[in-house]
């Protein structure tokens, strides 16, 4: 993916122009309110999608923008999910503070892990991220006195949001809550990727050796974005806990790490809405095909992956954008 060069004299101006809200974005957010009025029966699915999309955006920041291939981001999702659940079990079910604490905890672990992440590249990087994820999974599995092991964490209770909106059976509050979090996450991510920091991340992705040569501290940048992404993934995990009132071991699984990367690639990496669109397509398709044996469902996902990688390496959104550009 090439980034068009700034043509104006003032680079800040260029950055500002790129970060302007487009019509499509506004239309998207208006459309995201539709489930409240039109598809009420699908509200639980919609909140699942919003949560997973937030997780996918967090992965996009490290994978799509900074080019760090990670197969273990479910670790932060799961850490967030478990810490939110444990806080609530300990007697503090207030959702917003629980969300923040869970996110910060995942971020702290992410910060510590980032010291190792920036040291390695290529296969070793993939293996270290995968290793971390498997490690946390085994840890959670063996510490069943704390996490409930394979039975999952039971007895989580979440208080109403802001003391007003109770989590109802229909999922109005859950979807509103998850959507608000996704919106905040995306606004924050937009701000990040359209800043000079975001540009240097893309520089790292395009050519990691050149960054030190032009005086950019690429390790520091990578650590920062990895930590930010861990916080966001942790928040997504905490949202899942608070909206479903349970935590299961599969929040930490390799499957979740792989699925989120699949969604990201379907939509298109290195573009924030690619993560969201990919998540919607993946989750809706899975919901519609849920009566199918999951093994066969993965046949189609596998085939789709192969086709996307071979024919549309920029993902669905990327290919659409390319088509639109060719028309002009």
């Amino acid at each position, binding site marked *: 993916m090439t980034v068009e060069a700034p043509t104006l004299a003032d680079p800040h101006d260029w950055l500002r122009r790129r970060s302007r809200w487009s019509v499509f974005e506004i239309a998207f957010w208006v459309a995201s309110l539709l489930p409240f009025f039109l598809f009420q029966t699908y509200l639980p699915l919609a909140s699942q999608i919003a949560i997973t999309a937030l997780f996918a955006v967090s992965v996009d920041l490290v*994978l799509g923008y900074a080019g760090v*291939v990670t*197969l273990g981001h479910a670790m932060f999702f799961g850490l967030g999910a478990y810490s939110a659940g444990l806080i609530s079990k300990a007697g503090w079910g207030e959702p917003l503070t629980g969300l923040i604490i869970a996110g910060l905890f995942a971020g702290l672990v992410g910060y510590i892990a980032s010291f*190792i992440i920036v*040291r*390695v*590249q*290529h*296969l*070793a990087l*993939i*293996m*270290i991220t*995968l*290793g*971390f994820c*498997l*490690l946390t999974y*085994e*840890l959670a*599995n*063996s510490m069943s006195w704390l996490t409930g092991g394979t039975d999952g964490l039971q007895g989580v209770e979440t208080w109403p949001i802001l003391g007003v909106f109770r989590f109802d059976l229909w999922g109005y509050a859950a979807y509103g809550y998850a959507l608000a979090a996704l919106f905040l996450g995306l606004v924050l991510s937009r701000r990040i990727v359209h800043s000079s920091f975001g540009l240097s991340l893309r520089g790292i992705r395009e050519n990691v050796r050149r960054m030190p040569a032009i005086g950019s501290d690429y390790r520091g940048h990578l650590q920062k974005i990895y930590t930010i992404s861990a916080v966001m993934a942790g928040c997504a995990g905490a949202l899942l806990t608070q909206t479903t009132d349970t935590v299961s071991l599969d929040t930490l699984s*390799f499957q979740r790490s*792989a699925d989120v*990367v*699949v969604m990201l*690639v379907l939509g298109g*990496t290195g573009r924030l809405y690619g993560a969201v669109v990919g998540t919607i397509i993946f989750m809706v398709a899975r919901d519609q095909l849920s009566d199918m*044996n999951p*093994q*066969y469902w*993965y*046949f189609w*996902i*596998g*085939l*789709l*992956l*192969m086709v*996307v*990688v*071979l024919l549309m*390496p920029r993902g669905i959104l990327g290919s659409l954008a390319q088509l639109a550009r060719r028309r002009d």
Partner: protein
Amino acid sequence: MISQLAIVLFDGFAFGMLLFVLSVGLSVTLGLMNFINLAHGAFGMLGGYVAVTAMRGLGWPFLAALPAAFLAAAGISVLLERTLFRRLYKSGELNQVLFTIGVVFVAAALATYAFGTVQQVIQLPAWLRGSVEVAGLRLGTYRIFIIAVALAITGLLVFGLERTRLGARIRAAVDNQRVAQGLGLDVEKIFAVTFALGSGLAGLGGALAIEIVGLDPSFGFHYLVYVLIVVSVGGLGSVAGSFFGAALLGICDVAGKYFVPEIGSFLIYLLLVAILFVRPLGLFGKR
């Protein structure tokens, strides 16, 4: 206690040798083309199912089913390599990872369709069943057989790489692909041959593994993790690295599950992260 330790060491070593056969091909192909082939475990699964079909459907003896597994995996892998994988050598590692994960998904679904999700079993010939007593220890005959096969393969590989013309070409291409190409070596062809051999070994490993770890459609995914650990810990493109990496992993895994079952596989993942932290290129990696 001492005899317990010896048994665990022996079982672990046998398991490690199984992992070695499964993963050595990936190590060499990764070193050659830097192509991250996560579908390697799927070729192992293919070999396993070929062996099961040959023995149960066609009534072949075990010793004939093993080469069949090797040939089937080698043939199908080279077909895939020529038609699909070669398009991805120049693209980024993410695309390689995703494409080959897609292959694993499809392979698992096809295996479910053809064989169902049940664990497959095979009937070993009588001379491989039971155990023999060596110096007061009862050792499984089949595990001794696996160790013998793995050692023979190691010998063949080392001899082939060090003493034959093809081996010299492979070593040259691993060391420096560009210079090898400049000297007139057809690196693509070398790679296709290596890929077929490596996948064939994975298929053989899959067939050997049925008796020890079983075989079901999740094999490709489950053993992928083990295979990747062996490759990354051992170092790319190194037969000796894969050998020691696999032996270490096998022994640690069996010992961990035997002595401290409550923390399960935690130990090997910790070992993986620790080794890669200290040596990102693996124990025997050069580049």
